[in-house]
């Protein structure tokens, strides 16, 4: 996909078509009108974020407000993507919510070790899934506070 000037607010990293459909259906069903960008693997995800970074510096774009990340991805797998995101100062401030089928302890521990902001297991029950997405959207996009783009731009050089 080529870059367009729409400012993406939600990045969905998911490789299964059916899952994408279900997730989008849920997101739209909850009237979350935020612009969504879907990428099908980890490589695409990182490429996209790199582009966003450039755009941010050039003041032509923004970083997404939320990344929904599946763990089972081809090419670069979910945890790797997470690691990259959280080690890059430009992207580490973006809330990452892992949305996955797995409830394995290993995945959970590793994700949190890498700095994931939230870990959710996709329920089989669709209604439950819809409820979950509603709550997550509400929380991370409306309630949770994020720094502004200008703040990100000027403060990015500081070491913690």
């Amino acid at each position, binding site marked *: 996909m080529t870059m367009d000037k729409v400012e993406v607010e939600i990045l969905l990293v998911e490789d*299964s078509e*059916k*899952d994408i*459909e*279900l997730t989008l*259906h849920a997101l739209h069903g909850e009237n979350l009108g935020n612009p969504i960008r879907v990428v099908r693997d980890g490589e695409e995800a990182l490429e996209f974020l790199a582009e966003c970074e450039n755009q941010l510096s050039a003041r032509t774009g923004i970083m997404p407000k939320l990344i929904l990340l599946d763990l*089972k991805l081809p090419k670069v797998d979910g945890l790797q993507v997470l690691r990259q995101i959280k080690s890059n100062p430009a992207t580490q401030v973006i809330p990452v919510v892992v949305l*996955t*089928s*797995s*409830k*394995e302890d*290993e995945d959970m521990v590793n994700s949190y070790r890498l700095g994931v902001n939230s870990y959710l297991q*996709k*329920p*089989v*029950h*669709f*209604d439950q*899934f819809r409820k979950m997405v509603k709550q997550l959207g509400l929380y991370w996009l409306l309630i949770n506070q994020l720094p502004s783009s200008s703040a990100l731009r000027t403060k990015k050089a500081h070491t913690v």
Partner: protein
Amino acid sequence: MVQGICLVATDLSDHKRAEQKIREQAALLDLAHDAVLFRGLDGQILFWNRGAKDLYGWTAEEAVGKISHELLQTTFAEPMERIEAVIQETREWEGELNHISREGKAIVVTSRWSLLRDEQGKPTAILEINRDITERKHAEESLRLAHERLRRLIDSNIIGIVIATAAGDVVEANDYYLCLVGFSREELEQGQVDWRTVTPSEWLSADELAIRELREQGSCTPYEKEYLRRDGSRVPIFLANTLLPGPEEQIAAFVVDITKRKQAEEALQKASQYARSLIEASLDPLVTISREGKITDVNEATEKVTGVARDQLIGTDFSNYFTEPEIAKQGYQRVFAEGSVRDYPLGIRSASGQVTHVLYNANGFRNERGEVEGVFAAARDVTERKRAEEEVRQLNEQLEQRVAARTEELRAVNKELETFNYAVAHDLRAPLRHIHGFAEMLAEEASPVLNDSGKHHLDTIRDSVERMSQLLEDLLKLSRLGRQELSKQACSLKPLVEEVVKGLKPEMQDRQVEWRIEELPFVQGDPVLLKQVLVNLLSNALKFTRTRQPAIIEIGQTTIDGEPVVFVRDNGVGFSMKYADKLFGLFQRLHRQQDFEGTGVGLAIVQRIIHRHGGRVWAEAELNKGATFYLSLRACEAEKNELATATAAV
């Protein structure tokens, strides 16, 4: 001394003439050594020679005229009458007389009397000639006494005394000896006793040796031999000989019957031999050590283990024969200091260099004064034991290795299962989600055009997916249980039960439930897993008592076959014991899904957990009368076994 001669002119009586003659002869008699005296028939001394004076001390002047036996205080050996009778008859008498000299000294004489007659034959005087035999008498008396003492000695029969010739004739013997050789005194007197005949032939050479020594040196070394008596019995004797002075060669021997001594010797010998044979028979090397650390005695086993002969060992340092001489030395020094030593390890090095590992047990032994004279040490060969220990150690090592290898295998298998699990969890869930999601979306979007049947179909699809999802979760749970590390600790069951009951509160809404929780034991187990067991059992109880008002659920403990057992009893719908064996089977249910929901995994999980704890779980029930589930939890250590059995199931 010549008396004065009195010459009278006129007629001399015969008596006087006789006197004259006597006096003339007296002068001659003075030359005689013996005491010569004349006395009248009344005893009056008429003449006294010089010899008499020398012998008795009285001079002639003093003696003449005195009664002789008064002067001399004569003691007669025979009565006077007898002497007179003899004199009258034979005109002579001879005998011994005892006189006292002038100084009071006792004198013994042989006395010869002669009766003097005149021409008519009438006795006129007695001539008495006395020879001093006092000395001789004394000598005779001494000899007699000596003889008597010797006789007494011989006849006392304290020991045998015999006098014999070298040829064998026994000349004299006391009763002891005769008794010894078995002859009578008559036979001795008849010369029938011969010491050679009573000596067994094997002893004769000893006798010959003794006789030779006797002849060369006059006496011989005492020796032992035996006599063979006429009844065939043998008596052991001890013999000391000496040559007697005399014209013929005669041997005097002192003979002692040493039967008793011999018996005692034999007994001692036997005992000593017995003791020695035990020492030699001992398979353990035995040794005695002096205070200076030298070997004083060894047995055969010691010779064998050191490879050194007994006489080479004795006198040498004990510590020479060990791989660690200093340690050996400290060992026996410890015995001298403390009295004994037990299981002291040492290595004996033989002459050929071979080392035998032993454990020493040693004690000090005392002499008759009670002082510690030396150390008695016995070595127990532990080579075999050491070898066995080494073998065991090696086997253990091998076992450890094999166990480690097996554990690795199991770990690998476990890892595979983990991966499998993960895959199942992830990859099976996704399609389920999709089915559910799209069915749901279809239901919503097609709702206007769907009839009841269509709606029903979609509901069924959704229900099936939900059920499958549940089954999947339960399967995963069960599988995880099999592989999980059991973290055992002491758990108090009662608080755990109370926790579970609290957690079940939402299901108890609008229901009358009576929980009877009694005292429960402490058990060894994984609290998380045990809680899971309780959750399953209690939620089951709750579920199957739904129709009861009130539902009564009891949790308590009892003892069955001496084991503590926990039970959960409810007053619910129960089940028939006909199907009891299906109870804990995977996905087995005894009730219809629409009556009571469930996947049939709950009890399988309970069983898996309890089995992993090494316990047992079983149930008793009656249809409509409720059910009781029993758990026995023993302390288990067979974790490895659990690991092995767990790999068989997923």
